[in-house]
């Protein structure tokens, strides 16, 4: 009898159930799972996700700016970098490589981030209004490391991809992709820790800064 057998057998006998897990047991579990039952959602989360998202960003220390069109992104990135006195070199996802970076003097490397890169530019699968959260799904051309390794993470969010709650984000993911990819990454603000004397310090192991560019 393997450890697996022993553990399952003990669970069964402790629960007062005879024998092994039956197909009926497994079918019942699958039936419940496919019902996709949602728990209660707080009232505030149901209204105006974009407005909520902006308010939550303030609470999380995520800076946020609205622009009209994707073509305005390189200019906003340049402005942000200048204001924060950062380097003009960025790595980023493939989908933004064709924007007019040269015009703003920014070097945009379309490749996954390494430990030496300081600014990472990503998009997101969707954003969640309730909590000011970005959902990034890892894939060959959308690596999570670009949002994680650099000190500064700039995320481009389209308003059309804003959903009210995490449940809605999962629904969208299931509708469009089916199953979660290997890396399903929810980001809410720059990294932080309060492990020393419960004093919050922004910038632990993940980025120090998260800047959202919201596209109408």
């Amino acid at each position, binding site marked *: 009898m393997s*450890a697996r057998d*022993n*553990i399952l057998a*003990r*669970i*069964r006998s*402790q*629960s*007062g159930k005879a024998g092994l*897990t039956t197909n009926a*047991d*497994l079918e*019942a*579990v699958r039936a*419940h*799972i496919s019902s996709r*039952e*949602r*728990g*209660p959602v*707080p*009232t505030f989360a149901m209204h105006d996700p974009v407005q909520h998202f902006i308010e*939550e960003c303030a*609470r999380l220390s995520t800076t946020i700016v609205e622009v009209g069109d994707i073509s305005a992104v390189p200019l906003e990135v340049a402005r942000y970098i200048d204001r924060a006195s950062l380097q003009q070199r960025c790595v980023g996802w493939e989908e933004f490589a064709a924007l007019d970076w040269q015009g703003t003097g920014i070097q945009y490397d379309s490749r*996954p981030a390494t*430990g030496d890169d300081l600014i990472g530019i990503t998009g997101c699968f969707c954003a969640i209004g309730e*909590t000011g*959260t970005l959902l990034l799904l*890892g*894939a*060959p051309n959308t*690596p999570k490391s670009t949002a*994680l390794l650099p000190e500064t993470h700039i995320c481009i969010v389209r308003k059309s991809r804003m959903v009210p709650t*995490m*449940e809605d984000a*999962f629904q969208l993911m*299931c509708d469009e992709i089916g*199953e*979660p990819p*290997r*890396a*399903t*990454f*929810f980001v*809410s*603000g720059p*990294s*932080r*820790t*309060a*492990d*020393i*004397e*419960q*004093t919050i*310090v922004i*910038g*632990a*192991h*993940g980025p120090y800064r998260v800047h959202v560019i919201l596209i109408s």
Partner: protein
Amino acid sequence: MQVQSMHFKQTASSKLNDAVLQTALKKSKGKFVDGRALGVAQIDNWEDIRTFAASMRDRVIDNLDAYLLEFERNAIRRGAEVHWAETAEEANSIVLGIAQRNGVKTITKSKSMVTEEIALNDALIGAGIRVMETDLGEYILQLAEEPPSHIVAPAVHKSKEQVAELFMKAHHKPRLTDIPAMTREAREQLRSHFLGADMGISGANFVIAETGTTLTVTNEGNADLVTTLPRIHCVVTGIEKVIPTLEDFATLIRLLPRSAIGQSIANYLTLTTGVKAHGESDGPEQMHIVLVDAGRTKLVGSDMKDMLRCIRCGACMNHCPVYQNIGGHAYGWVYPGPMGSVLTPTYVGIENAGDLPNAATFCGECQVVCPVKIPLPDLMRKWRERQFDMQLRPFSERAAIAMWGYFVKRPALYSFATRIAARVAALMGGREKLIHSLPGIDGWTQGRDMPAPEGKTFREMYAARLAAQKVKT
């Protein structure tokens, strides 16, 4: 982790007199308690969410075998290897085996309470493998060679001066004075380890049956670096962590960070399903999930099964007036506070942790704040019942209860005894009406006087009043 729970009373005593700890406890109490209150106030249907979450966890615990099998099926389908471990030794041997088979020299690790239970680090280090804790609190404790004192904020008992001292010695750099600088230095020190590690070990806040996903909830980003960068990812998790669906995670994540420290959400929620896909630059080549029993099955189907609902938020200990005064180390094992008082006897034996379920006034604060409505005082009382039935308490306690039980059931005898006691004690109290010491209740009189009884019992005075009224009429 080594069990020190049998020394609870002595350790608690020294903690009460530990000035650095007392300052730390006061600070953290304010942050955690006030923080949670503010966080909960944002939610208009908090009680409904708690009720739903409790029943969701119950559904899983009552069908744990089926949910684990469904999780395993989906995890394997997505490319993970699933291992089962009945004991701590088995779990350590599995993880060590994975490391050795793959020529692993360095491991980075994110915080996992179950790995503290099984003492995984010791097993790996003993075999010559380098293990770096990356959660800042756990990193500090690794340097200090101390166990965690809290499940969410493991180094809450340390002052910044103590941390500065540790960093100066370990990093060979000038002593720092400010907390942001210390955090930055830790980040810099750990960076190269993150990037160079062969294997990453994480726990799992939950695992999702629907998708075969394991997940971590962190603020620092260390769990992400631990689970994304190395070529092997090993998740070690208790079997009770399984939840049915992604939606259920969305419910629980409304409760967990708020209950822990009042955050509306934690910075990084990292759901990991399977191995690096074709063409992906990120991600491990091998994904191992170790499902650990180590005593959890004892609770399944038992009168303490509610404890398995626990989502490890730490709210119970944060609000416990006993914990607030003595800190986590006094409890002597991985889990402090009310949840520790229930789990520690379960996992290490009541004979090794006898004082823990008694270290409570049953004030009920823990039950009020538990996001999944675990009736913690009732569970601690059940441990007291077991101790009573097994005659584990000291003789003096058992004798006192027996004697009290004998008298209190017999009204006439009780009346007689209490009249004597009231008079004697009133005499002892003297003019001050205070008793300064009384054999048998040293625990009280060491720190307090005992206000003396009035001298007669209510029952006798009332009987006399009735008799006088009868005489009048």
